[in-house]
């Protein structure tokens, strides 16, 4: 990606946030901050240090109940953070200094002003030259109390870091967007990627990224693959790549297809759910 393209991407990111509508429903008990953020995507090429400007627009809501602040203080603050290696979020007041909030979130800025007023806070995303290729999710939060203990997720930015010399793998086809590899794609099973009951997924966002979150659906294929795969599916990490596998151990057929969707591990709209004794009864496990 060229510098000009990166600048254009960052600018477009701002527009996406600025023109979006609240994407997160619920959390009515702390809806003091109304932020016009929504999940957005930005692409960069790794291997060099770079910064992406971030603008987080918001509308000041009524001040926290019982607040000792002056009446014109509307809310508490905006924060953002990430757990991605080599990626940090900086607030308007400098680099991050506090790693205790969720996802090492840092202040982007305080929200003060007359309730109902629209304003924005500014920050930046720093990507180091050693940041590995993969998906870095920047989680945005509103801080809903003066003690700065209640973080409410209000959106996410997906930063896709590509390997510096990425070449499109031969078994990944279908949807591409612009000059970047797709995050949702169709993969084919070949003699090169099938091993026993599994087939590796080749994507710059999942290779060497154990924390990637991959969802798959079998695709009969078009043009016709014409192969049934009558087995429950799962995914596993081989140590370098993610793979789709047949849960019953049946051999993975060569010449069939799978639809693959890559998500980050910390996105607001999904996660890795673990069945435990406290959230599982009989055939069911509960996930919020």
């Amino acid at each position, binding site marked *: 990606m060229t510098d000009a393209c990166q600048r254009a991407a960052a600018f477009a990111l701002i527009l996406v946030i600025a023109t979006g509508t609240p994407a997160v*429903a619920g959390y009515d008990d702390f809806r003091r901050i109304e932020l016009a953020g929504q999940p957005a995507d930005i*692409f960069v090429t790794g291997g060099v240090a770079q910064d992406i400007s971030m603008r987080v627009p918001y509308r000041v809501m009524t001040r926290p109940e019982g607040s000792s602040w002056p009446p014109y203080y509307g809310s508490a603050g905006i924060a953002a953070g990430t757990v991605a290696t080599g990626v940090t979020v900086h607030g308007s007041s400098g680099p991050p200094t506090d790693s205790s909030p969720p996802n090492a979130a840092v202040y982007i800025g305080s929200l003060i002003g007359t309730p109902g007023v629209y304003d924005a806070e500014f920050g930046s995303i720093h990507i180091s030259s050693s940041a590995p290729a993969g998906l870095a999710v920047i989680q945005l939060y509103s801080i809903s109390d003066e003690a700065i*203990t209640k973080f409410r997720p209000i959106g996410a930015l997906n930063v896709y870091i590509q390997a510096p010399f990425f070449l499109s793998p031969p078994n990944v086809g279908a*949807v591409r967007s612009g000059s*970047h590899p797709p995050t949702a794609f169709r993969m084919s099973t070949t003699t090169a990627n099938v091993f026993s009951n599994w087939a590796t997924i080749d994507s710059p966002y999942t290779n060497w990224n154990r924390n990637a*979150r991959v969802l798959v659906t079998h695709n009969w294929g078009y043009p016709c693959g014409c192969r049934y795969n009558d087995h*429950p599916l799962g995914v596993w990490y081989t140590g370098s790549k993610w793979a789709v596998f047949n849960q019953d151990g049946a051999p993975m057929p060569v010449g069939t297809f799978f639809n693959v969707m890559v998500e980050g591990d910390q996105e607001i709209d999904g996660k890795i759910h*673990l069945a435990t004794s406290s959230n599982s009864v009989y*055939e069911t496990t509960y996930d919020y």
Partner: protein
Amino acid sequence: MFVTPNWNPGQPVLGSGGYLNHNLAVGYNGSRIWFNSFTGGYNLGMNDILILDGASMPIDSAFNTKAIGSGDAGTAFVHVVAASNMPSTVSNYSWITPAITDANAIVIVTPRANSGPLWMNHPVGVWYDGSRWAIFNEDTSPMHLGNAYNVLVPRPPEIH
């Protein structure tokens, strides 16, 4: 919600997972209460992940999940099997409705358990018949009228 079992997940549940040789579905229980650690309050309603053959859920099973809110209705919706979207009522496939006509679309599906789990215990896939996408039972058993599936067509990245 959409779900795929994860044999060896990364963070934050590193080290769990394992085999889960069962067909799955998702459901929603509006009466369950969960603690929201972000707000310090309690919220009503939880998503469920169910094993369709009735086997007990193995502890430490891990799942990659994605939840889509109402604001994403353009890319995610519920497909209901009906006579009007099947070639015949004994067909093993049902045309996704509303229709997805792009041959290059990437379609992710997950069964919805509250629409009749007894008839959904089959691996499912998707296929394009030359004009639109359909959901099919991999074991060729007929699709059941009234069964519903969550359908997701991931949007392309907005920024290039």
